[in-house]
């Protein structure tokens, strides 16, 4: 334990209105604290600089998964375990379920939340690539009321987001339009379980007559944020996924991403594996 525990505050307020009022009072002074699977790790290693937190774990308004004809809406506090056991998510959003099943071990999956994963803004998160290609919308709440922003563009730089300090993630909405699309998710981690990703790939494609009508590709751990690879997508639209299309797509993706060396892997590895995984995705279309 590397933290001076008495220096930290963690309030538990019980009502969403009280939490957003507190966040509004002095924006940035208090930060939300969900399941703790990221913050407690920083805290214990003495690397949690911020000291005032408000627990949102017990806010019922941020819980639950609801389904309408257009959307599946997941409360920000939906845990990875809850994601995996939801029938509609399993049928229509299997990549999110797979991401959830590959995040930490069971004990982490019972506490880690989708909202927390987004707000933690790690480029190595397992769910964000899936959320990106599913075209998720994020509902934010503050004392000024709610607003909805697209997840694409939500992360503006390393650990930076469009969310204001007085805002909370209330829910994540997934448009129910991709069920018939081909789906491909692959996390390449340091081991089979309890791993942080070296790269993480999510791909969606709408095929017609063997031709790619529409395609979405997102990658984690290859840039300061999780990225949609729009140049590669554009290059592939209207093509049959044959050898020449694959070769073109590989070249495009190599231009589009710029992974780095870090403690977990190398730039060369990440780049080449990303290209290979892209090829695997396209080959399976």
């Amino acid at each position, binding site marked *: 334990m590397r933290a001076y525990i008495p220096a930290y505050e963690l309030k538990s307020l019980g009502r969403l209105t009280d939490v957003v009022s507190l966040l509004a009072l002095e924006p940035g002074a208090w930060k939300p604290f969900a399941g703790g699977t990221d913050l407690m790790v920083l805290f214990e*290693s003495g690397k949690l600089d911020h000291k005032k937190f408000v627990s949102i774990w017990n806010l019922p308004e941020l819980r639950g998964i609801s389904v309408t004809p257009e959307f599946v809406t997941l409360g920000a506090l939906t845990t990875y375990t809850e994601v995996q056991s939801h029938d509609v998510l399993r049928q229509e959003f299997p990549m999110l379920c797979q991401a959830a099943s590959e995040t930490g071990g069971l*004990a982490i999956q019972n506490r880690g939340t989708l909202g927390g994963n987004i707000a933690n803004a790690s480029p190595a998160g397992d769910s964000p690539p899936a959320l990106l290609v599913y075209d998720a919308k994020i509902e934010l709440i503050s004392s000024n009321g709610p607003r909805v922003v697209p997840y694409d563009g939500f992360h503006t730089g390393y650990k930076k987001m469009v969310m204001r300090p007085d805002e909370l993630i209330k829910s994540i909405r997934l448009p129910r339009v991709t069920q018939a699309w081909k789906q491909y998710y692959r996390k390449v981690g340091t081991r089979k379980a309890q791993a942080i990703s070296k790269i993480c790939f999510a791909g969606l494609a709408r095929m017609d007559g063997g031709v790619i009508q529409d395609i979405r590709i997102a990658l984690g751990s290859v840039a300061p944020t999780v990225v949609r690879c729009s140049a590669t997508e554009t290059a592939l639209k209207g093509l049959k996924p044959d050898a020449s299309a694959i070769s073109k797509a590989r070249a495009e993706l190599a231009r589009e991403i710029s992974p780095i060396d870090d403690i977990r892997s190398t730039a060369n590895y990440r780049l080449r594996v990303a290209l290979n995984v892209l090829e695997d995705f396209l080959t399976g279309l």
Partner: protein
Amino acid sequence: MPDPSGKVEINLIVNDEPRTVSVYPMARLLDMIREDLRLTGTKEGCGEGECGACSVLLDGLLVNSCLVPAIQAEGTSIKTIEEIATGEQLHAVQQAFITCGGAQCGICTPGMVIAAVNLLERIPEPSQAEIRTGLAGNLCRCTGYMKIFESVVRACQDNKQNIPAPVGG
């Protein structure tokens, strides 16, 4: 009245008994269990949610107690390794760990037993793959896991034998 030290009172159920402890709100559930409640069966291996030695059941869910701040344990029910046996009667998982050699140095064992008990509660007859996934959050450096897998299989066989057959029809 808030405590000037910043400590708060946490009320919770631990091993079926209501308990109240006064701790810092960010104190780890792990320390609360080990130091304030003196239940030292729950171990610390890594302090970052990787090894699972600190596993406990929180409202029936497996959690790493090193990653749960005390204030979030308010009003919950915690079960630790001390409550897995019923008096002198070991749980089938505990007995199987002894019989099959699932415990060597023993430091991961309480967490591993908790995770295995939880696994069998969720999936009474897990496949090999389910056993591996169910225990993947609990690291063991001694056994290479083989004897732990055997212990889980053995425990679920023993469980099956102990379940009375349905009567009548």
